[in-house]
């Protein structure tokens, strides 16, 4: 298991490097650089040249990537080309704001759908199941920006319980952000619930149909006990990857949702940085998102490994079987 973690961490370093590399050159390939984007209709050749010089954009592309990489390796992510602020502090502020939406959304958005999925699976074919399934299907088909708009119309404009947008940006106080975080969090829960419900439901149905479950039921194990003791622990395993992908997607900054609510999180920072071609900020966001993906997936795999003894033994068995083949090839 230690070896597994070590390999995974090593590959993740490569992943991070590739993410940084591709983002850097993808942004380079976008039309217009920081100077042109900032100046817009005022981008006269003289003005662009002046600004480029001020921002140090006149250096060669590879040279700039190499120097960025060198600094990043020592933990220095530089300063934003647009605001001149330190990239690390800008990103951490935005990330902490995103966490304020993400953490409650993950807690509610994982437990509730898992429970609903189990319920639907256990009551397969009955009214509860069809209600849950239909609602999940509908929620899955509506894009999150529509959900966001509807929620704003209802809970911020028609019945003004929550604010429609965050006004003060990254200078907003905690209480201002906390009340503004409710609607975005609900949108995220709705967006990710459907997938988890559906995965959990089918997994529970499969679990209930296994031979050991049938045997247990025939032996007289009460249905509730059968479900929670014997079926759910195994049924949740195939759902873990679904959960981890959703969590990573969410933590990486939910771009659209944040921009609809003018919420000063990582997603909005990313939109603003893309539109101004602010490379240092984008690079750091790419690294952070890649890191989150890697870590969340690793966590999901380790949880699965810890929860399921079969996976550990299977791994070992497979390795033992594979070794002779490898020797044959090399010999």
């Amino acid at each position: 298991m230690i070896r597994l973690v070590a390999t995974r961490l090593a590959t993740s370093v490569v992943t991070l490097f590739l993410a940084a590399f591709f983002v850097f050159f993808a942004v380079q390939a976008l039309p217009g650089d920081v100077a042109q984007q900032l100046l817009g209709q005022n981008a006269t050749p003289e003005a662009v040249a002046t600004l480029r010089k001020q921002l140090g954009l006149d250096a060669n592309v590879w040279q700039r990537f190499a120097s960025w990489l060198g600094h990043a390796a020592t933990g220095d992510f530089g300063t934003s080309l647009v605001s001149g602020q330190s990239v690390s502090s800008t990103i951490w502020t935005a990330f902490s704001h995103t966490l304020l939406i993400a953490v409650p959304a993950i807690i509610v958005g994982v437990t509730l759908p898992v429970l609903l999925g189990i319920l639907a699976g256990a009551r397969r074919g009955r009214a509860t199941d069809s209600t849950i399934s239909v609602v999940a299907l509908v929620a899955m088909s509506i894009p999150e920006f529509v959900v966001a708009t509807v929620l704003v119309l209802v809970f911020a404009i028609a019945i003004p319980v929550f604010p429609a947008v965050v006004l003060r940006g990254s200078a907003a106080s905690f209480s201002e952000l906390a009340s503004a975080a409710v609607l975005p969090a609900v949108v995220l829960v709705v967006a990710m619930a459907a997938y988890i419900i559906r995965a959990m439901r089918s997994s529970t149905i499969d679990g209930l149909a296994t031979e050991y479950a049938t045997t247990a039921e025939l032996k007289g194990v009460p249905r509730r006990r059968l479900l929670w003791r014997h079926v759910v622990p195994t049924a949740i395993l195939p759902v873990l990857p679904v959960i981890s992908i959703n969590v990573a997607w969410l933590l990486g900054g939910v771009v659209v949702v944040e921009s609809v609510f003018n919420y000063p999180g990582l997603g909005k920072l990313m939109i603003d940085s893309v539109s101004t071609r602010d490379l240092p900020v984008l690079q750091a966001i790419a690294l952070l998102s890649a890191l989150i993906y890697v870590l969340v997936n690793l966590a999901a795999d380790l949880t699965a490994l810890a929860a399921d003894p079969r996976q550990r033994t299977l791994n070992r068995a497979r390795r033992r079987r594979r070794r002779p083949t490898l020797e044959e090839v090399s010999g």
Partner: protein
Amino acid sequence: MSPSIDRRTLLAGAFGSVATLGLVACGAPPLQVPRQAATGTPRRGGTLRIARPAASAAETLDPASSLSAYEYLGALYNRLVRLDRAGQTVPDLASDWSSDADATTWSFRLRGGVRFHDGRALTARDVRYTISHILDPKTASPQAGPLELIKGVDAVDATTVRFRLKTPNAEFPSLLTAYQCYIIPEGSASTIGRTGIGTGPFVLDGFAPAGAGSVHANEDYFGGRATLDRIDFFSIQDTSARVNALLAHQVDLLSQTNLDNPTARVVAGSSGTTVARVANAQWYTMPMLATSKEFSDPRMRQAMKLAYDPRAILSTAIQGTGTAGWDNPVPPQLKDWLDLEREHDPDKARSILRTLGRENFRTRIYTSAYEPNLTPIATAYAAQAQQAGIRLQITNVAADSYYTQIWMQRPLMVSYWFTGRPVDQLLNQIFRSKSSYNESAWSNPRFDRLLDAARADTNDTTRRQKYQDAQRLIIEDGADMTPVFGDRLVGLSTNVVNYSEYGFEFDYLSLGLKEA
């Protein structure tokens, strides 16, 4: 960026259908957008909240910069002179001005007793400093070009400032009305971007680039104290988020936001919010690149104009909220405007194309979601041009690179400017050969000579005649079509009174809130 465009369109559609449903349900008559904002006696004091799209995180309070935070400027600073609604140059910090006989030396007398927010008295030296700051290549100010004709500025005494020009210019004062020409204190170039110390009706409390900021009333303002106590500014980038903030009563006014028609209906129909029009504030253009093989022939450009009726664009693309342009770039409210309805004759256009051997001419017309009316105008124009056999393929491209990749590079596109430039600057900056803002790359020596002659002409009547001849030349030969001037549809709370905006400035003095 294309998903975000889709989203906007879809959201607008969603808003529109919500509005339509509401209308059908109540059986109400179609919504009308009010002609102008509510006027009346405001209550004294109060805080107004304005939502604005920030230029970028690099924005600054330095008025000379191309990255200036537009809304703050008029509240914090004053110019020497400003434009009134009819495009006349009127006093601001200068009480009067005069020139020598051939208009190469101009003297401005400053208003006495004006103080900056930090208590310093305004003197001619501050004016001299401001101009040199604008002209400094390091500032890269958009107004440096038009002011290049200044040879030197002298602070003659505390309240007299003299401009020596390289060439005579009878319209010189109008060039100082640009919103880059707000007067800043001497020696403040490196700090003005944050401090915002001016002479204006409001004093800066705080400012964060792309964030929130606020100003409070200047008790010693020479023009009298403002009605409001305070104005809060908030940055909201996403247009639909800005509209939501207004509908949820989190803000009172949306600046620099021209609402598209469906959204304007929603705002006008919701309780507590309404829509005001800023007449002819948006100048829409369709530059035909005069250097392209498509449009280098003046006859081809003439055919493109003859083919369409600007009144049709006005009624379909912007639903009557504006004025037909007839390819004259000067907005009708200006005193030097030439009232000329050029011919509209699709058959004549067709026969010109036949002579040129370009029957069934086809090309692309570029547009983008950069501004909500660009695509409706492109569509309406394409439909009109079809009557002359011109087939235009509407090509919608990403908004964030529209002005870096398409503008001044593709043969045909739809663009826009804010109106508010004085006639001399408008014609020289956007139509003169080789000017860096000449978006159609049109070059006509006769036109350039006409502008020079106008500048040298100190007789008001004959000078006006020359500016009108220049307009006629643009209509006949020019490469930049002006289909319409659009009213800006501004969303605001019904509590706001006396909102008005012209010449790149809000009327911050009388802006107020209704009696509670």
